[in-house]
């Protein structure tokens, strides 16, 4: 894990004075408490320097991984495995996983295999740990399929 915490502070200016804006800075070490004393002191100092008021903060900690993307993969990042889920209130949610490996794509090249293998493991992990933004559990991922989001090739441009 990185040895610093990125802090986004969203400020709201007075009415009719434009949109909300952010100030961004980094704190030493991992700060996970929004009410951390040093963080709050900095926000108070920022508030004293600006006409706007701080309304929201985001604390971000990142882990970087060393690895290499699979070369000449069948599906690139524009291709997604589209997972459709339902939470415990019956509301729908979805996730788009980029560059799906061919082993989770069915023989029809469209359906994502979510019962077994890596696709099944992903479904298990999401339904076990993921929540909705409001904290409700994810009950089920009913189906998944492959989608593309590429620009159409213009006629006459391919030789």
């Amino acid at each position: 894990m990185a040895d610093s915490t990125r802090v986004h502070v969203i400020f709201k200016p007075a009415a009719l004075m434009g949109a909300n804006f952010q100030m961004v800075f980094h704190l030493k070490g991992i700060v996970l408490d929004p009410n951390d004393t040093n963080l709050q002191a900095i926000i108070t100092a920022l508030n004293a320097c600006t006409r706007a008021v701080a309304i929201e903060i985001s604390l971000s900690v990142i882990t970087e991984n060393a690895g290499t993307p699979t070369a000449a993969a069948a599906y690139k990042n524009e291709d997604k495995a589209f997972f459709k889920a339902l939470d415990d209130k019956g509301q729908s949610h979805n996730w788009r996983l980029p560059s799906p490996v061919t082993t989770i794509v069915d023989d029809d090249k469209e359906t994502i295999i979510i019962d077994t293998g890596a696709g099944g493991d992903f479904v298990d992990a999401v339904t076990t740990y993921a929540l909705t933004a409001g904290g409700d559990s994810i009950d089920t991922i009913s189906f998944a399929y492959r989608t593309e989001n590429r620009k159409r090739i213009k006629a006459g441009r391919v030789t």
Partner: protein
Amino acid sequence: MAWVQTPTNQFILHFVDYSGVRSSMKFHLDTDETDPDAGGAAAIADAAQACSAAELSSQEIVITAVNGSPGTPTTGPYSRGADKALIVFGSADGTPVNLEIGAPNETIFQDDHINVDFTDTAVASLVTLLLAHGCTADGGDLKFTQRGYRRRPPRRKHQ
């Protein structure tokens, strides 16, 4: 100020494919999940990586809180977020680090209304706190302030 944490933490997976195209997936996790490389976060990250030919280059936990009593913004000179006071810090390795203060109070500028007055109480407090607790994106120490000045917002095109 009382800051209220949102019901869930965001968990973001950052992918890059072999063409260098980036994409991301966002989940919500329990507020106990604060380490992007452990617990449910690690389980989802591992499962997602097994399904994707792209490289999971980093994973990020974002903790968000909102201000329960934000106060009232004031109006006057430079009250839009597009107006900025730019304070440039110097880091241990010489890398400049910028902090942009939107909608700055005019009291933090010198009489020329351009240069930041580093003897102003609010500015001095902010600089002292950031030198003590702030850092560069790489975690390096901030050592000094290089300069501070007001940036004008970009002009609109003539209609």
